[in-house]
């Protein structure tokens, strides 16, 4: 069984699909980067630790 030739429709929509894929990958990277930036800005404090003033 061999791979079929891509349909003309897929060829014509290649740029659109590739662009959308890149946009989604960039979005995931941005959300990841934002998470890292937010977490590094304010150290996480557990609720119990916040009350007692202890670090862990």
């Amino acid at each position, binding site marked *: 069984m061999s791979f079929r030739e891509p*349909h*003309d*429709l897929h060829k*014509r*929509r290649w*740029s*659109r699909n*590739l*662009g*959308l894929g890149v946009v989604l990958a960039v979005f995931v990277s*941005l959300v990841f*980067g*934002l998470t*890292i*930036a*937010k977490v*590094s*800005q304010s150290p996480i404090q557990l609720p119990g630790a916040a009350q007692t003033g202890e670090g862990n």
Partner: protein
Amino acid sequence: MTDASFETQTTPGEAQFGDYVALLKPRVMSLVVFTAAVGLLAAPGAIHPFVAFFAVLCIAIGGGASGALNMWYDADIDRVMKRTSRRPIPSGRVAPEEALAVGLTLSGFSVIMLGLATNWAAAALLAFTIFFYAVVYTMWLKRWTPQNIVIGGAAGAFPPMIGWAAVTGGISLESVLMFGLTFLWTPPHFWALALFMKSDYEEAGVPMLTVTHGRRATRRHIFAYTFPLAALAIGTAFTSIGGPLYLAVAVLMNALFVKGAWDILRRDEPLAEADAYRVEKRYFTFSLLYLFLHFGALLAEAALRPWGLGGW
């Protein structure tokens, strides 16, 4: 079920990725990005560089989304005007419903992500900006009043305020002055364009000042607007975001801007047509430099401040 059962009929000029990017008006976006970044960097307070980058990106996407909604609603007049007839919708490459979907999706996305990344005051300002451009300007004012440019110009003036709010969480005199700078700059900038693109707006039936009140009145309006603009631009130099460098730039640029408007005021139509609107075109190009240098000077003041050089 085979591939043949899927819808495979597509239009000859099928939309490529670049057509969806074009819906976001990338050239307008560059102004939004620049002024928003200046508002953000001039604001007092600290923000993580990545959060700052993300905030500017959200503001740019929000601005782009309102551009897509504008193209969706204005497709009928874009088809008539020479300047806009090759846009994705009038040229048939993107369906109007697709543009509407892109605009609404990106609007919601940009507002929510900006709120999560910075604060909800900045997000609310961005939501209001999108609403102002897409609904107040595009749907209500543009086809109704020759003051469309004056009031609609507010939409393009909000980005530095949003950038400022992203850092400070609110509004202050300085951010209102940055808003005012773009707001008062917009009418003379667009009226100069309307003077030498006259047939476009007339054919589309858009009530530009040149169409409703005549070209003489438009020239007077351009000249009149440069004075409150100059007062505001120079006055900004004496606030916490200004400084000697900004003052020097503001004085020089506003003197040249008033001189350019005076040259436009002195001309009449036969004279302008004789040299193919050379003065009006030069004034329009100069107005871009005018805004860029004002915000550039504010950026320079903010950048020099950590070394004790910026500000007074």
